[in-house]
């Protein structure tokens, strides 16, 4: 067994505790862990195969930590990503501000990265409408403006989670088909050229 070859790099971004790890956990392991919340330290990588039509695409998912402490490092996690799932918590409006920050960062630094805006914890927002702090249509407008996809998911119930990742894989697979000869993916093990970090902070 050697390390799995990864076709597409997918990065999870968003303020801390919005539910990035829970989303990956639900998608990859089909479960929702209850119990005390554990911040991600740095980032965690997991590879997952997904069927698109009759093809198999391997997503290399980077679940990053939302803490500001790692912000200066964030580029190593999203550099070369083909898709970014930018998460915000439907019950926390400040998390949407933070999502906008990540969108800007990606637009500046990763023009080939497709953006998926993901409102999390939809089960909470549905159970009690009054706690919703981020309006669906506001986000949809923003998504149209930046050319992003838009989902609302619940990692607790699993609602819309598979659909989100399926869409990511399909988009990748059709764009990969356009961009390169069939069968060649992006080998993330490859060394990239070094880059100048400060470019994305000006």
């Amino acid at each position: 067994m050697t390390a799995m070859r990864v076709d597409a790099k997918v990065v999870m971004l968003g303020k801390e505790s919005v539910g990035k790890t829970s989303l990956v956990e639900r998608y990859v392991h089909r479960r929702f862990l209850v119990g005390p919340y554990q911040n991600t330290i740095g980032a965690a990588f997991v590879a997952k195969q997904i069927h698109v039509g009759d093809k198999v695409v391997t997503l290399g998912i980077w679940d990053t930590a939302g803490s500001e402490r790692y912000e200066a490092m964030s580029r190593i996690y999203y550099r070369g990503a083909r898709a970014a799932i930018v998460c915000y918590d439907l019950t926390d409006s400040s998390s949407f501000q933070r999502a906008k920050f990540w969108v800007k960062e990606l637009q500046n630094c990763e023009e080939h990265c497709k953006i998926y805006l993901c409102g999390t914890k939809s089960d909470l927002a549905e159970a009690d409408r009054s706690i919703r702090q981020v309006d669906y249509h506001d986000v949809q407008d923003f998504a149209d403006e930046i050319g992003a996809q838009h989902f609302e998911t619940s990692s607790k119930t699993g609602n819309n989670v598979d659909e989100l990742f399926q869409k990511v894989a399909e988009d990748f697979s059709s764009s990969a088909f356009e961009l390169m000869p069939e069968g060649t993916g992006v080998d993330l093990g490859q060394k990239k050229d070094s880059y100048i970090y400060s470019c994305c902070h000006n």
Partner: protein
Amino acid sequence: MAADVHNKAWESQNGSLVPGARLRHERSDSPTPGLVEGTEPGAGQESAMFVHARSFEDLTADSDGQAEVNSGKESDLGQVKDEEGRVVQHIETEDQQTGTSQGGARAKEEDVTSEEWRAHKKHVFVLSEAGKPIYTRYGTEEALSSTMGVMMALVSFVEAEKNIIRSIQGDGYRVVFLRKSPLVLVGVSRTSQSDRELTRELLYVYYQIVSLLTLTQLNHVFQHKQNYDLRRLLAGSEHLTDNLLRLLDRDPGLLLSAVTCLPLASSARDVVSSALQAAKTKSLVFSILMAGSRLVTLVRKKDQSLHHMDLHLLFNLVGSSSSFREGEGWTPICLPKFNTAGFFHAHISYLQSASDLCLILVSTDREDFFNLSECKHRIVERLRRRSAWQALQEALRCPSYPVSQVAIPELRHFVYKSKSSGLYTSPELPVPYQTDEEQERLMVLYQYLHSCLHHPTRPLCSIYRCGETENLFAWVTSGFELYLCFSPLGTKSVAVSAVNKLLKWIRKEEERLFILNPLTY
């Protein structure tokens, strides 16, 4: 309670020492355990894995100026953004306190005006030089901002007179101050620990914070803005410091500046070590395999050694968070005893998702994740192919041993540290010490013995102390430190003869209990 104290070295009484020959079979047969560093049971065959902390004094001495040369330095450290760039985030962090960072079992909600809060045995506070709260062990930082303001005022008041405040003693408690610019750490303790020990614990907390941020970044943020709220950068790491403080109360390793190993047949350990050694890549500096809080093996780059304090910080990082259980972690970490200025990058993963075996690969290159991931797969593959895997699984089933194996009836527990290897061994805690309170009480006793052996001006070579609940004996030579706990029925002569028997037993078992052949790549 009687304290019987010897100031004379024991070396002379015990006569001849083991000669320099260090072949393994001779070591095992040698009748007298070596009293000289390098010949004691558990001493490694070659150079030590750890940076040599010869003494407690090394540890408490301020060594910031003498950090070793490193290759892990990164260039982006100066790039912490200035305040203007962060206006939005600032607002977010202010109102996020309600929703996040209430990690696990933290007693954060505790009312700081309550009796329970006051009654905690040991408080730890961290504040900035502007008096802003950064961390409190109990209660919330917000509720304590005026208290911390007063602490800072006190520090500044004394410093204005060109003095330094170190500690205050009051009615049944002491307050200890540690000034590590740009931070101020304050401990308030009701325990019997000395100022020095409390200061050392604060130093650990300081290094915990540095390991997350680097000193460079820490200095940088405060240079830009004196009253910066550091909790923004530390958000989500409180449980690391909480856990570290728990370890300081319980884990003899942190007290002794040493690490303990998973008992494992030396042949199996050698196979594991060479699997780690074979899976190398250019950027790799340390490969560490641990089982729970025990070391299985550590392989390091030639000429580099790891400070036990840095290793404890790594253990604490892995041990306090379940987030490495799934997938592969990739995180920046500063090893402050190696270098306070730069980040290493650690690849952290469990060999199997349900197992206790955690592999930490420490690299200098933050771009090297996939190479390290490949190393991990090679290690797993190689271990699976060998019988060592089976041996490892069996060792994991009994990661400790009962003191009865030593067959000394009065002996309840002991801690033995081989100085030259920086490794210690200790049996599992026997029945009377299994509750948290009793475990901590025993640790307090060991701490007391330790402080007698390491007294800055009048260090003792050995100490025997009778108590109502147990008798204690401690002995330090240039080769080892030994702490023993006997039932209260024993006598001093029983204790003395037990020591010889125990040392022989450790010598006999040393291949299993220690890492005698540390490897490098």
